[in-house]
């Protein structure tokens, strides 16, 4: 049999993400160790200086999560492709920095490997940072773009997508993954990514004659701040129109649609197969962008006549709110929740769907 997967790599999610970033031309990484994300800075530290990645100019372990995000701000201000990676507690610490970055319209990629929380929590996988990532997270009114990979190949591919969105819209982009995907190993082949060059004419790299660039989030004049915030809002409205991403699995004739992202989407997909074998017409909608949320696809499903949605997530009910908003009260929405790092098995999901069908 001809090998369909010749020359594929076998990497864990965190490693795949690090290599994905390197291959798309990462310039700088500023990190702080926190389980379960530490393989990302460790991989990058090991590859620093590798002539295969000539663009990778700066690797620095900061003294704190806060120091790291502020280093990211500085490097991003020069127009560089900059990334940081952390887990929940560190993501909390970075929120002020992300607020500043959003206000100054700085492109950057921040990875959150969601672990158990709140507080110190544990090292198991959760999806409890959903609110924090998608509803702003930091102070002030702004929205991040949030991507949710659900496989090791996506962990490898998403840095390139994240940087292209970050620079297209001059916005921080969050890659929200979890402790399970970070450690899962799968086969993958790195996509051929054309070298991306972005417009960085706004960068602060020294005045040119009378013209100078100021990156500031301070607008003391009230109408001026109002205009700036309205600009950020309309920018996000454009992102919302153009960048919703999701994947549908057997939804065309489905009576009940599961909605899940990340590792839950993989388990839900198996559950769909198992349900179909039992004669239940189930389907799966997998959001790929959590922000902008794929409201369009959800609304279309409702339009087509889907009456039942079951949201499967590793929290006590976060994405389900967005599903309720998107379906506008025109369908039954149920919420299947697991926390503490526990995962629902595909059979658990099957039983839940069956129970709800009765």
């Amino acid at each position, binding site marked *: 049999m001809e090998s369909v997967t010749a020359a594929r790599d076998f990497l864990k999610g965190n490693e795949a993400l690090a290599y994905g970033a390197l291959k798309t031309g990462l310039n700088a990484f500023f990190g702080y160790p926190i389980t379960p994300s530490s393989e990302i800075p460790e991989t990058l530290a090991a590859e620093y200086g590798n002539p295969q990645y000539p663009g990778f100019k700066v690797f620095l372990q900061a*003294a704190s999560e*806060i*120091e790291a995000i*502020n280093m990211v701000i500085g490097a991003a201000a020069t127009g560089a492709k900059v990334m940081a990676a952390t887990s929940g507690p560190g993501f909390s610490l970075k929120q002020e920095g992300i607020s500043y970055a959003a206000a100054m319209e700085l492109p950057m990629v921040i990875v959150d490997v969601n672990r158990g929380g709140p507080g110190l929590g544990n090292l198991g996988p959760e999806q409890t940072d959903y609110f924090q990532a998608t509803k702003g997270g930091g102070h002030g009114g702004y929205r991040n773009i949030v991507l949710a990979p659900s496989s090791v190949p996506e962990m490898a591919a998403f840095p390139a997508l994240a940087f292209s969105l970050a620079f297209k819209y001059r916005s921080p982009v969050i890659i929200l993954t979890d402790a399970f995907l970070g450690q899962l190993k799968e086969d993958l082949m790195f996509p051929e990514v054309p070298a991306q060059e972005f417009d960085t004419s706004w960068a602060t790299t*020294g*005045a040119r004659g009378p013209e100078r660039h100021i990156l*500031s989030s301070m607008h003391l004049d009230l109408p001026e701040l109002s205009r700036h915030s309205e600009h950020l809002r309309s920018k996000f409205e454009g992102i919302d129109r153009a960048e919703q991403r999701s994947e549908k699995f057997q939804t065309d004739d489905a009576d009940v649609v599961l909605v899940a992202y990340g590792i839950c989407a993989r388990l839900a997909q198996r559950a769909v197969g198992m349900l179909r074998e039992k004669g239940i017409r189930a389907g799966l909608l997998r959001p790929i962008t959590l922000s902008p949320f794929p409201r369009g696809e959800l609304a279309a499903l409702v339009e087509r006549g889907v009456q039942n949605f079951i949201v499967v997530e590793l929290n006590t009910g976060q994405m389900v709110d967005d599903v309720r908003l998107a379906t506008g009260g025109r369908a039954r929405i149920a919420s299947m929740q697991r926390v503490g790092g526990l995962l629902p098995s595909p059979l658990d999901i099957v039983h839940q769907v069956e129970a709800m069908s009765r």
Partner: protein
Amino acid sequence: MIGAEGHYEVKLGPLPTLTGKPTHYCAGCEHGTLTRLIASALHELGVRERTVLVDSVGCSVLAHEYLNTDAIQAPHGRAPAVMTGIKRMRPDLLVFAVQGDGDAVSIGLSELIYAANRGEPITIFLVNNGIYGMTGGQMAPTTPAGMITMTTPHGRDIATTGPPLDASKLLATLEAPAYVKRVLLPVTPTPSADFYNARGSMEGARSVRNAFRVQEKGGFSFVEFVSTCNVNWKMSILQSKHYATEVLAKVFPPGLFKDKFGVEKG
């Protein structure tokens, strides 16, 4: 000086490194002096087009309104980290910040120490007036014992709050920094109080130039300017100059703590 042209030769005129906008600083504040010293040094060195100013949070937050260079704002206390990010990506740029004592020694102490400890080739000017200015006069890490502030209405009690922190001395204990200096910037009253000497400004001008030179040589440079805040000290401008000379400068004596490249000699 407005209206002075007829009687005096105007020496301190416009500079390409100044926007020319009148500053918002209070009368009697050394921020204005420092702004001028920085603009002069940048102009002399001819580096305007490769300079990036990092705004901190405090009275210096509007620095980019007066200094005519590229600028980026840092969150409160984080300027040393933001500067690190810029300089690591673009070692060819001249990167500096003006920070207040709250920004650099309170919320930003960790960022300050680590940037200094890594020997980042950046420049930090600390305006130390022993109080939080912008937010209305609360206690700062550098507030002297017994001083009355908005959060120490009976005077700073060392038993509860600890003694004031000496940033220059702290940084001087580190191996990496190349230039650490403390200057008493305000005009100091002579005993008769009929005359003031501006030695501080001369020393300040020299220190600012040296600090930039040290950065160009690849070293971390830090100059602490002991200054005044007559508004929040609730003193007259004259009283505040006395207080800086007689009290603050005793808690924070001027001096050269580190000069790895010997720029003070040359």
